[in-house]
């Protein structure tokens, strides 16, 4: 045993409550402790990921209650991969937001980092928990900290964005509870593996109704089309690094919850087609909405939604290749979109309106930030030799192998739209004249390091995608093999009862 | 160059014969005499039978035909045209006005004696000279060419200073490229 998954949840939660206490003694600690915690988590999680890639899944039971009855944590190649990714992004976000804007002061920094820790803890919990109600609780933890972080800045429209998010989030939690109620009433269990095992017992009507409520509940977190009204506002009004965290952490957790339901819990074959359709609609609506935006972050938000649509399309293909492509896409999106948000937040640092036109000509004044933004833009539209290309290629190959030619065409057409709006921004950065009233803000050194790490990952994956493909293959294998998951989880309990 | 009939070589004789029978005329329609050129060239009088042909530009022309009075304003252009023509070249003064001013003898605005400004080879008298006279003048020029006596260009070159002085008297603001051969 190389580490304990429970620590990945317990430590950040603990840290979140300890921060204000220690902060009373040593003020700087509110900024430092989260970093240390995240670094420790990252190391622990990465070592566990290495372990599970080569060995078997780590399953942790809480308080000695075995599988179908108690809550257990599953650190499989899939969940481990996603958890590691989230913790890594949490670390990057911490590194970036160290003394970022209002974080210089003690009070805001305290709140900020408390909620960041809760966000990470909740998201990691969503991914590695094996209990459906536990997942609901973690979703709520994540959501509440996300509401709070969205409303972090006063004096902007952030409260409005946060309220919209909250409104949708409440509906989401209601839907989730109803879905859980239905499942529990029919199967009498809350353990995911157990549910999956017993799903054949459930009457079809109940099954579908539960799935639909889950779709709505998790769809709001995962930003699928008609449910994502909150997303652009929240991305726009949240602090830049929190936008990155939304794109890299929160949404990924939502997507995980969704695919876990569709792939493992429910055995409804048509739900795959539903994923494809809803993904395509999300992709098209979001990307076309992005093209006419005049605010940078809002444009990035729509792009993020669109990418999620693409991820759902890739999952909906339903083959191991499709899952691999989708996971690769999630990985790349989790690297690139935070880079765009982070560098973008420095590009429009001092501006009130955050308009795209305010980035004009900044390429000369903040060369590295601009270059990183351009790199992110190049990567996200899928230009080789950057990382985004490989994931897009994987999606298309997977789709082609299933004969979904129309989908390929639609995805590629939408990519052209994506190119248009990203390149318009890049052109503005480099080839327009800077207006005089824009005040340039040089990035702090820690922010710069955070962005450079992300940028170099883009290049590394771009030149050698095989560096990550083994984890992705394992993860996709893990997701596709429902039976193995069920057996892994339940075997512990069975072994004990026998 | 060609001063004396005796000095003509056989080549010169041939060339002069050709020059005589192939006169490209640049008719500079300065005055009322221009109206006499079309009848001269067309069916009734048909100057083309002498090998005469209208030339459109001074570069191609052999003969400069000054048809009538020259105002002081036009003189400059005429001089320029003359100087742009290639050797051998000839000038025909056409009508009384080119000889002594004619009916404009007391005008403040025309030059009276063309010969003071350009080396005239043949004058055609009359006001206006009819096409017959024009043809007779051209025939005269032809015979002069054949004899090698139509040497106005050489005269102009020799006495350039005198001509320039005369020209500059009429034209106060003299801005023209030098005539340098």
């Amino acid at each position, binding site marked *: 045993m190389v580490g304990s998954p429970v620590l990945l949840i317990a430590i950040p939660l603990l840290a979140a409550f300890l921060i204000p206490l220690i902060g009373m003694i040593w003020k700087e600690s509110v900024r430092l402790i989260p970093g240390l915690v995240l670094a420790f988590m990252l190391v622990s999680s990465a070592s566990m990921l290495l372990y599970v890639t080569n060995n078997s899944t780590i399953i942790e039971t809480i308080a000695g209650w075995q599988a179908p009855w108690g809550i257990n944590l599953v650190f499989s190649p899939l969940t481990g991969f996603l958890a590691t990714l989230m913790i890594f992004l949490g670390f990057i976000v911490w590194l970036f937001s160290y003394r970022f804007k209002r974080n210089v002061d003690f009070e805001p920094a305290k709140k900020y980092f408390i909620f960041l820790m809760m966000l990470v803890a909740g998201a990691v919990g969503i991914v590695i928990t094996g209990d459906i109600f536990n997942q609901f609780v973690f979703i709520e933890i994540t959501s509440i900290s996300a509401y709070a972080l969205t409303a972090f800045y006063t004096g902007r429209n952030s409260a409005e964005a946060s309220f919209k998010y909250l409104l949708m989030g409440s509906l989401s939690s209601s839907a989730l509870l109803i879905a859980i109620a239905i499942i529990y009433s029919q199967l009498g269990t809350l353990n995911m593996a157990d549910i999956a095992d017993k799903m054949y017992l459930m009457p079809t009507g109940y099954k579908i109704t539960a799935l639909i409520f889950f779709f709505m509940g998790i769809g709001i977190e995962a930003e699928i089309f008609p449910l994502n009204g909150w997303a652009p506002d929240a991305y726009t009004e949240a602090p830049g690094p929190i936008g990155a965290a939304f794109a890299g952490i929160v949404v990924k957790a939502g997507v995980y919850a969704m695919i876990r339901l569709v792939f493992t819990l429910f055995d409804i074959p048509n739900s795959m087609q539903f994923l494809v359709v809803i993904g395509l609609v999300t992709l098209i609506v979001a990307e076309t909405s992005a093209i006419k935006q005049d605010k940078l972050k809002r444009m990035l938000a729509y792009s993020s939604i669109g990418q999620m649509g693409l991820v759902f399309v890739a999952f909906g293909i339903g083959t191991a290749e499709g899952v691999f492509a989708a996971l690769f896409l999630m990985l790349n999106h989790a690297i690139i979109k935070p880079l765009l948000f982070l560098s973008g937040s420095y590009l429009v640092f001092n501006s009130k309106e955050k308009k795209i036109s305010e980035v004009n000509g900044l390429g000369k004044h903040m060369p590295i930030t601009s270059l990183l933004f351009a790199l992110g833009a190049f990567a996200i539209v899928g230009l080789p030799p950057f990382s985004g290309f490989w994931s897009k290629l994987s999606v298309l190959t997977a789709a082609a192998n299933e004969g979904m030619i129309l989908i390929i065409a639609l995805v590629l057409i939408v990519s052209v739209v994506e190119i248009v709006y990203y390149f318009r921004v890049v052109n503005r950065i480099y080839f327009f004249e800077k207006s005089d009233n824009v005040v340039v803000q040089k990035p702090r050194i820690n922010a710069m390091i955070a962005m450079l790490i992300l940028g170099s990952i883009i290049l590394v994956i771009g030149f050698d995608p095989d560096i990550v493909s083994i984890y992705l293959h394992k993860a996709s294998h893990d997701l596709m093999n429902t039976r193995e998951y069920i057996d892994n989880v339940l075997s512990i309990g069975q072994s004990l009862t026998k | *160059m060609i001063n004396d009939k005796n000095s003509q070589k056989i080549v010169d004789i*041939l*060339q002069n014969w*050709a*020059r005589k*029978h*192939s006169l490209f005329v640049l008719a500079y329609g300065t005055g009322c005499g221009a109206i006499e050129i079309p009848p001269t060239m*067309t*069916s009734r009088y*048909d100057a*083309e*039978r*002498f*090998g005469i*042909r*209208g*030339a*459109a*530009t001074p*570069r*191609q*022309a*052999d003969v400069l035909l000054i048809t009538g009075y020259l105002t002081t304003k036009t003189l400059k252009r005429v001089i320029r045209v003359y100087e742009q023509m*290639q*050797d*051998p070249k000839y000038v025909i003064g056409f009508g009384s006005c080119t000889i002594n001013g004619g009916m404009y003898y007391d005008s403040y605005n025309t030059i009276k004696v063309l010969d003071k400004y350009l080396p005239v080879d043949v004058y055609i008298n009359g006001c206006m000279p009819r096409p017959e006279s024009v043809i007779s003048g051209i025939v005269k020029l032809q015979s002069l060419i054949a004899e090698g006596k139509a040497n106005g260009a050489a005269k102009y070159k020799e006495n350039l200073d005198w001509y320039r002085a005369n020209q500059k008297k009429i034209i106060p603001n003299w801005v023209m490229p030098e005539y340098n*051969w």
Partner: protein
Amino acid sequence: MELILNILGAIATIVLAFTVGMSYGGIVRKITARVHNRMGPPWYQNFIDAFKLAGKTTAINHGIMQHFGPAFIMVSSIVSLMIVPVLNGGGWFENLNFGGDLIFLLYIMVFGPLGMALGAGQTGNPNSAIGITRGLSQMVGFEIPWVMALVALMVQFDTTSIVDIMRIQNESGTWMMFSSPFAFIAAVMAMLGMFRYSPFDIVGAPTELASGPVSENGGKYLLTMMSSGSIFAFVKLTLYVDLFMGGADNLIILVLKTFALYMIPVLYGIVSPRYRTEQSIRFFWGWPTFFGLLAILYAVFV
């Protein structure tokens, strides 16, 4: 030895072309005069003019391209003369005839206008440049029916060699102008433009443009251009005779045929006014092109 003979043959061809071309020029002037009810100059007037131009003692140029422009034009006319078979069966006038020469001819014939254009452009005289633009535009106009006629010929005989076309005509005993009448009509209509007589003489337009492209050329330059033009006229006429009238067995027949052909643009020109450039282009893209199309269809289907 063979080389010397070839060169002698070439020189003989050039002399022949020069003589015939110049004489035709004089004869045209004479005929024009007679149509105008005038005496007109003697038929050898063009020789006198040429000789006189050679006797001009001074010359000016505006630069190197004006200096070499006439040489370019000469290249065009003489090289195209070299590849146009003068008589049936070659002999002295065989020169550089070869298969596939029609396409070559089409292009080398453009070399002349280009040289002219460069020379005229170098003078800096706006009239020259205007004349050139008109000339080139008009050329684009008449090349269309002309090429259509040629393509029809090539299709009909399945060759691009003038010699072959002549041989096949003689073997079958039917002149091309009868066996492919539309091609002939199109080609003749294009020829009107090619000779630049009225109504297609807007290029020179003596009074408007001061003789256009040549307005800065006198003396030896004008002489070269004039000779080249004469040779070129001969080339064009011979080419038409070769292509459409079965070629000629000896020089007399050649002269007769070419002269008869020459009368078409001349007589049409004498009684015509002048077209504007776009009018003449539209003219060429009207009926002549239609006939050219007919010719191609005729060649393909009949």
